[in-house]
């Protein structure tokens, strides 16, 4: 069971977000990521990670609007999305650490995890390509008469990818129940969004007649309200929406930046965004004693999470070609028998 199960997973009927629940989710994601960065430094997470620290309000606010049956398609910066959707944090951390107990048995890792028990269908590593996958899932739901909505996350880098725009077109053409959430954190690795995007992010959606707006992504309750409107529209047959979340990542693109200093952003810019920390913004809405209780619980749970992950066994190398094909087909080995 997830510690986040205590957060009401279904708030779709509620126009008013649960401030304490959002605080808890943001706090959990923040501390999960900080613990994960520690595990990267300790050599336990060998791939490194793309931390979402600074962007937690987007994951928390957006996913809080969903029902359990709704689907999330995540991105390479996706731990927050999975945690908010109810993925077991211990098994997610084990997955990042490449352990057999991970949600994907060590085959998804930090970059492309999925958890079908939480309806996180995948985080494709091909930037921008989740958009049309989302359209396909939305189409399958709509034609089956299901109320399912699909939430597709991607970054500002993705809006320069043709396959994303093809996905927008299909979703708009057939009014599919998809909510596109662009986490514009200002950079695609080292490339500033302004140097990559002609026109605007919302202009990409408007071109297809998709209701599109730009939202303060540091305020979880603003995110919640905007996404809720889009989810309600999608569920009632009104088709897709695009929401640009203006946000910022406080860490590097990937933890490799702990070693390589790539000076692509000014400290003054980082500092000004630190002044709009989503954790502090949400904390201000929750009573101090409540916060203290949540913080302590989160810490205790994360102690268990980390203990579970590092104590878990590594996958057996003999299983490297398991799950390659649904019928168990084995490839011939690479060296002569």
């Amino acid at each position, binding site marked *: 069971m997830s510690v986040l199960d205590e957060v009401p997973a279904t708030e779709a009927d509620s126009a008013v977000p649960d401030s304490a629940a959002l605080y808890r989710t943001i706090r959990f994601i923040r501390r999960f990521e900080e613990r994960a960065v520690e595990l990267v430094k300790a050599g336990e997470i060998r791939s490194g990670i793309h931390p979402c620290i600074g962007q937690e309000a987007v994951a928390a606010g957006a996913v809080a609007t969903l029902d359990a049956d709704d689907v999330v398609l995540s991105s390479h910066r996706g731990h927050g999305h999975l945690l908010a959707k109810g993925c077991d944090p211990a098994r997610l951390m084990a997955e990042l650490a490449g352990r057999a107990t991970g949600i*994907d048995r060590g085959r998804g890792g930090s970059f492309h995890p999925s*958890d079908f028990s939480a309806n996180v*269908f995948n985080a494709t590593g091909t930037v921008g390509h989740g958009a049309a996958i989302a359209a396909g899932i939305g189409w399958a739901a709509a034609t089956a008469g299901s109320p399912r909505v699909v939430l597709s996350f991607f970054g500002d880098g993705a809006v320069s990818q043709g396959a994303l725009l*093809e996905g927008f077109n*299909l979703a708009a053409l057939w009014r599919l129940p998809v909510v596109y959430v662009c986490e514009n954190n200002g950079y695609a690795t080292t490339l500033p969004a302004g140097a990559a995007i002609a026109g605007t992010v919302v202009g990409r959606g408007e071109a297809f007649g998709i209701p599109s707006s730009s939202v303060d992504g540091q305020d979880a309750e603003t995110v919640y309200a905007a996404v809720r409107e889009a989810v309600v529209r999608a569920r009632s047959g009104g088709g897709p929406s695009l929401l640009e979340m203006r946000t910022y990542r406080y860490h590097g693109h990937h933890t490799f930046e702990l070693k390589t200093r790539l000076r692509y952003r000014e400290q003054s810019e980082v500092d000004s965004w630190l002044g709009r920390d989503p954790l502090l913004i949400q904390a201000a809405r929750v009573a101090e004693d409540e916060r203290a209780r949540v913080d302590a619980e989160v810490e205790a749970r994360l102690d268990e999470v980390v203990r579970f992950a590092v104590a878990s066994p590594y996958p057996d190398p003999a299983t490297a070609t*398991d799950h390659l*094909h649904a019928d168990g087909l084995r490839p011939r080995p690479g060296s002569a028998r």
Partner: protein
Amino acid sequence: MPKLSYLKALHRALRDEMDRDESVFVLGEDMNFALTNTTSGFLDRFGADRVLEMPLSEQGFTNFATGAALAGRRPVVEFQIPFLLLLVFEQITNQANKFLLMSGGQRSVPVTYLMPAGGHRPGWGAQHSDQPYSLFAHMGVKTVLPATPTDAYGLLTTAIRDDDPVVVIGPLACLGVREDVDHADLVPVPLGKGRIHRAGTDVTLVATGHLVHEAIAVADDLAGDISVEVFDPRTVYPFDWDLLAESVGRTGRLVVADDTNRFSGLGAEVLATAAEELPLRVPPKRVSRPDGAVVGAAPELDAVLQPTREQIADAVRSVLKESGWGA
């Protein structure tokens, strides 16, 4: 008995699967007018919810199919031109075919990619005549290349029922092939099982796609002089190595007629495996397109780069003249 054409066999297989299983649907370009004839009459029979007309967004609709498959449907994506499979190579090989493993076995992606006119297209020139099956095999995507109407029916049926992504390429040169067969006698053909079209004792002639028919003609022409065993793998990946081993175990000689480029083509893999593992008495030979073939638009510049019956016959005769692996 009625004559069943290859194209009609593809049509029947798809129609039968759509009749049998509601989750099967087809998507592609010019579906409303069944441009390739594979889906003639489908719109009336199944409706627009199961016959999806797609805009020219191949990467988008290939990913769309992946999404629908993850949600429990069984999409069949039709492509009109071989290079479109190159345009969506990433979506098939790096996404659809990897999601099962990446999810630790949680969910497979049962999509069929149907290319009902692959390979040589006289006069169409450089960009419309590729035969990319070796590339999918290289990436470990299940890939079939039926040569006859019964195999086209049987393999497309099995591809649709398979829980993994499967690429089905029907060579353009096979579409007109006809066979005496009753619809009622058509059955699924398992993936990964080759077929011996002609039994022989002197040489194993592996042939793919429309070259199977050339190989059969060569075997018939040479009968009396040389006893040629014609081996059609039918599935490119996974390849039926066991049946090949049996055949070469009998003949000790091998020729491969491969309808794709020489460098890193299927023929290269068959020869390499045979050299490593099979009891070849003499060096094997292959007939293929040249390395990295780019054909001209004038048919004279195209035909000269395609493998021919004469080349196959010459290769067979030459391995029979060999007496061993050198002086």
